[in-house]
């Protein structure tokens, strides 16, 4: 036995002599390699969040639309990759444009170098992938406003405009060296850039589409259109939660001194607090511990802590999460009251909590952490200054106005030219059948379909 081993080792030494003489990699190369791995891992986690959106949207809607809802997420993520490669990345992070404060210009049909250049902390390829995954998340949030009644073609058209222009412009303003970045707007992983942007696109869509058939009664009261699978919805929250560690902690885009661990730590606290607060407020106000509200609360905690996870102390992360959990409960009530149909609760979870999370920086950010991240200053509590809160407020308002205007324009023109909503018959039969010709749950839906057609 020993003999055989020695022989094998001897042969290997002869075959691969280079291994014995290879030079040790430099510290810089190791550092680059670790960072790249981390960003790559974060990209994978954020991409996997699409699985969360598939389950979230499917679970929160009805059986007759399940296949459509699930399938279109995969399709639009693929389309988003192509559009982001061709245009979006260049608008967000491309070289100088004449108006660099407003958008980037360059690197269209992005053709990256095959490895990291000397002195880079990671290759641009992983950065591209990471940013693409964020854009795709924002897009999937927007789909919440389309759910159960938009034509398949409208998904395609909106993907093009959202990924090529709307999202990249906002990303450029805050992360790509645009004018809000220069003002010191703090949005660590995208409460505004990703979540608020997606939610406002969803808002524009749901307003233009009008509520689903049967959501509101003539007297203005709302009906509860229950999703068909609460287990999917709960599982989606777990998938998103796990993915969020790529989203937030990955946004350090560096291993460095291990700061990403702190970001992840705050993220966990925010999520926990959001879920707890939502369940308690639901129980206290309605007498029932509503599961959907609790799930929304957890997501709202995550959305809110996204902007602030690198800027605040742990206690503040808990407070931010708690407030987000309560906020999302009342926000859902509010949108129902003004008769805006929000099937997936995107407006409340990503919109209201996204605004809160962004503003929370202005209140809770500490000078120490702001200096560490290198963006903006400490907030109201730490510094006593209103400056950062004002900057945060400004970024919410400006981004909000831009995204709303752009989304209404794109979707409004689309509605005029090609139509946005399926016909009443198609909506009642379900989009699985009307848009794709087959049900997601053929056995269960067959009977219902026959009833409608017969």
């Amino acid at each position, binding site marked *: 036995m020993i003999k055989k081993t020695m022989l094998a080792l001897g042969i290997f030494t002869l075959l691969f002599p280079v291994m014995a003489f290879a030079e040790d990699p430099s510290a810089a190369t190791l550092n680059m390699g670790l960072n790249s791995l981390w960003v790559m891992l974060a990209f994978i986690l954020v991409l996997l969040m699409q699985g969360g959106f598939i389950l979230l949207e499917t679970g929160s809607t009805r059986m007759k639309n399940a296949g459509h809802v699930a399938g279109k997420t995969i399709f639009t993520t693929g389309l988003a990759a192509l559009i982001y490669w061709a245009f979006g990345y260049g608008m967000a992070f491309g070289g100088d444009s004449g108006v660099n404060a407003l958008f980037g210009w360059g690197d269209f049909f992005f053709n990256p170098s095959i490895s990291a250049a000397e002195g880079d902390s990671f290759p641009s390829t992983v950065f591209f992938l990471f940013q693409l995954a964020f854009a795709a998340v924002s897009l999937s949030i927007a789909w919440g406003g389309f759910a159960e009644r938009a034509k398949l073609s409208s998904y395609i058209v909106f993907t093009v405009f959202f990924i090529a222009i709307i999202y990249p412009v906002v990303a450029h303003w805050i992360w790509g060296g645009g004018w809000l970045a220069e003002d010191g707007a703090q949005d660590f992983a995208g409460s505004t850039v990703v979540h608020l942007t997606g939610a406002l696109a969803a808002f524009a869509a749901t307003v233009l589409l009008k509520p689903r058939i049967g959501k509101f*009664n003539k007297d203005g009261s709302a*009906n*509860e259109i229950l999703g068909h699978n609460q287990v999917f919805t709960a599982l989606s929250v777990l998938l998103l939660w796990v993915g969020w560690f790529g989203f937030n902690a990955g946004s350090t885009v560096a291993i460095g001194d291990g700061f990403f661990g702190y970001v992840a730590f705050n993220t966990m606290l925010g999520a926990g607090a959001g879920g707890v607060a939502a369940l308690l407020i639901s129980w206290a106000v*309605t*007498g029932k511990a509503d599961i959907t509200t609790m799930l929304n609360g957890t997501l709202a905690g995550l959305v809110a802590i996204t902007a602030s996870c690198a800027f605040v102390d742990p206690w503040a992360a808990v407070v931010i999460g708690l407030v987000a959990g309560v906020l999302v409960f009342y926000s859902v009530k509010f949108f129902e009251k003004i008769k805006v149909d929000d099937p997936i609760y995107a407006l409340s979870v990503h919109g209201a909590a996204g605004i809160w999370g962004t503003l929370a920086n202005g209140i809770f950010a500490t000078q120490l952490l702001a200096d560490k991240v290198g963006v903006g200053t400490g907030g109201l509590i730490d510094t006593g200054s209103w400056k950062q809160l004002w900057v945060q407020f400004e970024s919410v308002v400006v981004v909000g106005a831009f995204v709303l205007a752009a989304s209404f324009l794109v979707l409004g023109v689309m509605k005029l030219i090609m139509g946005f909503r399926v016909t009443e018959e198609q909506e009642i039969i379900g989009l699985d059948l009307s848009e794709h010709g087959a049900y997601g749950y053929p056995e269960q839906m067959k009977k219902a379909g026959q009833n409608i057609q017969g």
Partner: protein
Amino acid sequence: MNDPVRLQLLKQISSVDHVEGLRNLRDQIHEHMEALLPTRPVEQFNEQLNEVHDAVIERSVILAEAEMARMGKGSPPVPYAYLLFGSGGRKEQTLSSDQDSGVVYVDPVADSADVKIYFKELCEIIVQNLQHTGYPPCEGNVLSSNSEWCLPLSEWAAKLDQWFEEPAWEAVRYLLIIADGRCVYGEKKLLDELKDSFFTDMLNHPIILQRMLDNTLRHKMLLGFFGQLLKEQYGEDAGSIDIKYGAYIPMVNSIRLLSIQEGIRETSTLERMNMLVKAGKLSEADAAIYGGAFRLFLRLRLMTTEQNSDDLYANNGKLSSRKLTKEMTDELKSSLRLGKKLQRAVLKQTMGRLT
């Protein structure tokens, strides 16, 4: 207060000889009582209303007996009692209550199969008559026309024993239904004997109380953590408060459970409270405040949304908050708080008895 119109209608009910006429009279009395509702104290109104319902039901039974005779099926072969359960049993029917009924008859010495068939056919006609008169049948099928609820005394006793032996959830529910049973027509003695079995079984199966307690406290008072009313969130009734299941039924259940433990045979909730005072289980002061709260629930329940359809009088037990004035809301909240207090007291007292 004497009400000549009502007395006149009562008199007509007791002599009407066909179902259409009875229906017509019920419509008149419904209209009449509806108009009276805001003007009368609720207890008196409730009493008068239930007197009318009793008269209509009694007449329906008599008409059914006559119909059976006309069809050549003869008169009742043995004495029987026509029983009301639910709100009818408790003398707490609203303007639009449904039918919950049963029959107990004397054990026949011979031809028990024929007797069974006779009562089955009779009850089918009674239930139909009442349906014509606008009373929807019980959704849970607690109806005299259901052969499970139309039995001779000995079979009833056996059934009760079985329920007590195996107190599954449904059996406990049935036992609590029996506790509210009241004879509206026929031999009252038969019901007394049925209740004798019931209370004997109660004494022999003290453990049943635990199951009854679980069932009794299942419905919660609709008062939130902040002392706010818990209203319907969604649907046509959004903003309404479920008076029936969120205020009235929890109180009925609580008082019923206390009464069962004392062997009290009264079925109306207010009478049960009086008997509890006499038995020393409820202080005069408590009975007064709980009674006040219950009267409010009765009043609000009479104001709940009507859902008349297919010529049936029905309501959903829910009160639109538009009908609630500020004062009524405050009164309702404090009454619901009392209801919660009563539920806690029932829990404490019953658990104390069990240990």
